[in-house]
């Protein structure tokens, strides 16, 4: 019995629990022991590991195996040595294994990094995680990144707020004109897009003043990048052409982007040099943007993409160069020249409701607009932790002119406008430590000039200007210039955890306006005097004392500025013997508080009071013929506006889950001392009046925006909504009446690379506008816009795309629905890096767009001629 038992036990042991011991040593080519080698046993060369051992300090290994297999596969590996492998019998045995060095390199990997990584206040978006086959430039990828928005004009927003700086490898080459980089740097050259939250661009102030603004940094893959793109295309009809070449250089010490772009395909290349600079916090900047006093009658531009309607012939050249002279000292030059000839064709039908009648006016409009613009900037910047200097010299010249022909059915009106403008400005900011404080000096000085003229034939306003007699031509000339200078000195000091920055400043602005109306008839030329001329001097001086207090503790940031201003205005017109003087002391505090509630949540509030006063464009005593239907003057006191602004924001961001959201509410109340009213006379001419009466306007605005990236679906979804309710007082039949506008809008965006062969891009918005005039409701205006692009990747180097757009408005009688369709095919010659692109734009041949608008006294229906169905073939090179 016991024998049987013993036998049975042995059987069990052999069949189920066959155990073998493998022992041995691992040696290198010189018979030295290798410790830390892995010894693995599997069933066969592809099987999973059954047992393993790591060789000890003396190179010995011991593997114990419970397996009934007859043969085993033994594998011994050591890093940088060739793996030893062999079939062995499943039995106890002793093996000495010698490994020989391997020249084979180990597989290196860099895992496609997380889509978004957070490092303190920096968010790193991985470009490869967000890009797909069709994406060529970094702007294509940027718009898919949750939390980041690229607006239709090219401005970049992070969490609903515009970015402050656009750095390339930490250098600010383009200042605010970052579209040029964004639309040309190849996505494949960029490793990461970094969002620098709460970024203080001035290193010296880093620990003294917090910033609530975000900046963006482009991290390139290589330290030295020489790249660029070129494109050449042609098509019909009419004959279409486009050309573009953009070489770029990025090294540690030099950066350059140069471009030449030209086309007549409706692509508005002036976007490339649009400036999105943000004014320094709490600064009152002089407006140096172009001011036009006179205009020809324009057509309202359609609200959808320019490529569908812009009839252009544009050339743009731009050269941008940055050199790092020594550590943290940069010299920058940005020069751009734009030449454009645009044509607008359309008609406007206006129905005026006069007190007694309705008057219909049809204007068939044919406009030619010519632009010739030179913009240049020269910047020297030194930004170190103990010194800051930035000097910025800007010289811009605009030599623009316009020509317009209007056919009203019974008359032909010719308009000829020359509207040049030039500006030169120097801005200096200087920070230097003196003892324990930082001394600040700023200076902003400049000069602008605009000598413009408008000729209209036949002459208009015969009743007022020529004793009721028809005449040949009217000429309006306007000569204006502005000198301004703003100089500030102050210091920044830290007192018990509070950074205090008092400063004193004075600013002077001296404007002059000269205008004349000349009547040109067959036999005479007469320059009108009296009320039809201006000879105005407008001097405003502004003394201010400001203190800024910044406090930062833990999750709290507080900033309070307390400017006290003394403003005085001295306005006089010697020839009209009119003058006005005004002095005001104002207190315009601004408070900002931010609290970081948790890792994901942040909230902030701000409140400020501000006063602003009108400038020369709202105060002149003689009439100016602004356009062929408008003769206007502002014979009224200086406008004084007092406003209160309150703002609350809640932000959420979870980079680990790729969710971004923000919610904001703002309230504004403005008190004005003047009311303007346009009244319509019996002959459809408007009578413009300013009435001195305190009046208020209020507006409430709620905005919410959220976006999320779904990793599994490779999809970025964004949702947004905004609601605005505003009311203001207006004169109606001599009485104050309340006008209320309510606007509700929703938008939805989707960017999806859902499969290998298809990617989808959708954006849509819906908005309702309701206007109420006292108790009377106007018709609701509803608009919808949907854009859907489908990209089919038929092969690794080819795609076919369909771009569709739909625009709807409810108030036009016909033409409520507008459909557009483009087809596009791209073939890439991979060896040479050339894209061949064929596109058929406006395949449905939608030829015009009609839009309707209402004012208090008129109903306007305007028609704009669109670009016809067109075919375009182009070659693109990336280098």
């Amino acid at each position: 019995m016991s024998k049987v038992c013993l036998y049975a036990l042995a059987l069990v042991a052999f069949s189920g629990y066959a155990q073998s011991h493998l022992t041995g040593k691992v040696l290198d080519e010189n018979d030295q022991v290798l410790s830390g080698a892995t010894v693995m046993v599997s069933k066969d060369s592809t099987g999973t590991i059954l047992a393993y051992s790591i060789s000890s300090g003396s190179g010995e290994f011991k593997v114990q195996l419970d397996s009934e297999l007859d043969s085993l596969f033994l594998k011994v590996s050591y890093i940088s040595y060739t793996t030893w492998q062999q079939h062995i019998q499943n039995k106890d045995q002793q093996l000495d294994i010698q490994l020989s060095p391997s020249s084979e390199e180990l597989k290196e990997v860099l895992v496609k990094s997380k889509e978004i990584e957070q490092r303190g206040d920096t968010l790193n978006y991985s470009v490869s995680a967000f890009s797909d086959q069709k994406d060529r430039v970094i702007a294509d990828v940027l718009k898919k990144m949750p939390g980041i928005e690229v607006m239709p004009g090219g401005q970049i927003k992070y969490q609903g707020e515009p970015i402050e700086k656009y750095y390339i490898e930490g250098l600010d080459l383009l200042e605010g004109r970052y579209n040029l980089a964004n639309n040309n740097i190849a996505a494949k050259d960029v490793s990461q897009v970094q969002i620098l939250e709460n970024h203080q661009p001035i290193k010296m102030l880093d620990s003294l003043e917090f910033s609530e603004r975000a900046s963006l940094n482009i991290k390139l893959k290589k330290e030295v990048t020489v790249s660029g793109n070129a494109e050449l295309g042609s098509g019909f009809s009419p004959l279409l052409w486009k050309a573009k070449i953009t070489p770029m250089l990025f090294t540690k010490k030099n950066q350059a982007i140069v471009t030449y772009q030209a086309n007549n395909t409706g692509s508005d290349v002036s976007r490339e040099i649009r400036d999105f600079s943000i004014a320094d916090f709490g600064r009152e900047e002089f407006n140096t943007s172009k001011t036009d006093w006179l205009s020809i009658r324009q057509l309202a531009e359609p609200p959808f993409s320019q490529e569908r309607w812009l009839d252009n012939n544009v050339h743009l050249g731009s050269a941008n160069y940055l050199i790092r002279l020594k550590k943290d000292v940069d010299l920058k030059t940005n020069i751009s020249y734009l030449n454009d000839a645009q044509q607008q064709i359309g008609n406007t039908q206006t129905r005026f409701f006069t007190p007694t009648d309705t008057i219909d006016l049809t204007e068939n409009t044919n406009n030619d607009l010519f632009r010739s613009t030179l913009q240049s900037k020269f910047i020297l910047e030194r930004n170190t932790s103990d010194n800051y200097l930035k000097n910025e010299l800007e010289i811009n010249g605009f030599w623009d002119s316009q020509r317009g022909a209007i056919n009203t059915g019974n008359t032909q009106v010719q308009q000829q406008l020359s509207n040049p403008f030039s500006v030169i400005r120097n801005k200096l900011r200087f920070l230097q430590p003196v003892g324990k404080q930082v001394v600040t000096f700023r200076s902003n000085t400049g000069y602008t000039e605009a000598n413009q003229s408008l000729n209209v034939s036949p002459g208009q306003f015969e009743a007022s200007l020529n004793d009721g007699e028809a005449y040949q031509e009217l000429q309006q000339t306007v000569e204006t210039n502005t000198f301004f200078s703003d100089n500030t000195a102050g210091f920044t000091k830290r007192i018990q955890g509070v950074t205090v920055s008092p400063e004193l400043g004075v600013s002077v602005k001296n404007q002059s306006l000269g205008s004349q109306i000349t009547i040109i008839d067959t036999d005479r030329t007469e320059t009108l005097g009296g009320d039809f001329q201006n000879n105005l001097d407008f001097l405003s001086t502004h003394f201010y004392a400001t203190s800024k207090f910044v406090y930062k503790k833990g999750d709290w940031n507080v900033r309070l500025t307390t400017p006290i201003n003394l403003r005085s205005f001295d306005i006089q017109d010697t020839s009209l013997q009119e003058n006005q003087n005004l002095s005001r002391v104002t207190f315009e505090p601004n408070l900002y508080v931010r609290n970081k509630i948790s890792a994901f949540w942040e909230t902030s509030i701000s409140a400020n009071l501000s006063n602003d006063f009108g400038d020369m464009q709202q105060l002149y005593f003689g009439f100016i013929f602004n356009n062929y239907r408008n003769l206007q003057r502002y014979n009224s006191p200086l406008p004084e506006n007092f406003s209160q602004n309150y703002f609350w924001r809640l932000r959420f961001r979870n980079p680990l889950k790729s969710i971004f959201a923000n919610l904001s509410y703002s309230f504004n109340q403005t008190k004005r001392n003047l009311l303007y009213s346009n009244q319509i006379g019996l002959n459809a001419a408007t009578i413009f009046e300013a009435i001195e009466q305190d009046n208020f306007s209020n507006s409430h605005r709620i905005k919410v925006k959220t976006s999320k990236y779904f990793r599994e679906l490779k999809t970025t979804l964004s949702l947004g909504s905004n609601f605005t309710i505003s009311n203001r007082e207006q004169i109606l039949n001599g009485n104050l009446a309340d006008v209320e506008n309510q606007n509700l809008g929703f938008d939805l965006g989707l960017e999806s690379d859902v499969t290998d062969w298809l990617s989808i891009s959708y954006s849509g918005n819906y908005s309702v506008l309701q206007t109420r005039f006292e108790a009377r409701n106007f018709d609701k205006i509803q608009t919808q816009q949907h854009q859907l692009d489908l990209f089919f990747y038929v092969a690794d180097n080819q795609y076919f795309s369909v771009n569709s757009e739909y625009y709807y408005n409810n108030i036009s009688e016909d033409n409520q629905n507008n459909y557009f369709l483009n087809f596009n095919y791209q073939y890439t010659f991979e060896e040479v890096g050339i894209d061949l692109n064929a596109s058929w734009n406006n395949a449905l041949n939608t030829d015009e767009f009609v839009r309707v608008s209402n004012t208090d006294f008129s109903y306007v229906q305007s028609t704009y001629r669109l670009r016809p169905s067109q075919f375009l073939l182009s070659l693109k090179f990336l280098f």
Partner: protein
Amino acid sequence: MKFTSSITMLILSFAFCSAQELTDKFKHKATYEMTWQIDSTDTESVQSETMIFFSGGGQSTFSSEGQHIGDSIQKAYKKLERTPQSFSEMRSKIPKTEFNYYITKDLASREVSYREEIVRDYYEYTEDFSNIDWRILPETKQIAGFAVQKAKTSYAGRHYTAWFTTEIPISDGPYKFNGLPGLIVRIADEKKFYVFELTGFKVLKDPVFDTQANEEYLETDKSSFLEIKEDYNANPIGAMEQTGISFQFEPGQKEKLEKERRARLKKENNPIELE
């Protein structure tokens, strides 16, 4: 990666930096993304940080990338003249990190040593991992381009699942984990409070800063170290004052600081090692 390039720059600009600061014993570098939840009751407390792993000659070192870069910068600046400016410049370059430890391992002996500075003192304790066993499971898959196999173990009160690859025959991994027949590509505890994922692996061609050289370590054991750290956490100001650093507080400020600290500690209830 921003700091890697700044290190390269530092190496270039301080060419006189002596060779003994650099070591060429490490042949391979791996980076891991560590994601952890410091408060087990609050899913919002999830954070992540890049960890860095150097291996060569049967030994390895593991730390946060921030700690490694910070120490490299400090070493480079040690050679420079010390001025308040260079000090503040150096401070501004040191990245933030939540982890100040270094973990070094010896593959053959499976000895793991843990080093950390607490108020000017460098402590070290050693653990024997040879009795930490892995259970190899038949399941395989691809992660980050590597063929990986599943394995399980328990350590310090948590149950871990690891995925390792025999394509890289280094029986090592992130944190203290080691002893599998190949590099650990991913390891996470069963509640996913602590997750390490391989994000890069490369062969080193140039020497790297030996960030641990020249320090005198006070040898202790794990339980004593944890006591010291607990004492420090409970009263960091006291611990600092003991070493001769003096503080001047306004009345009530010290108490306030302590209160804030205790509130924060209460939330940091989920360390990687529970026992």
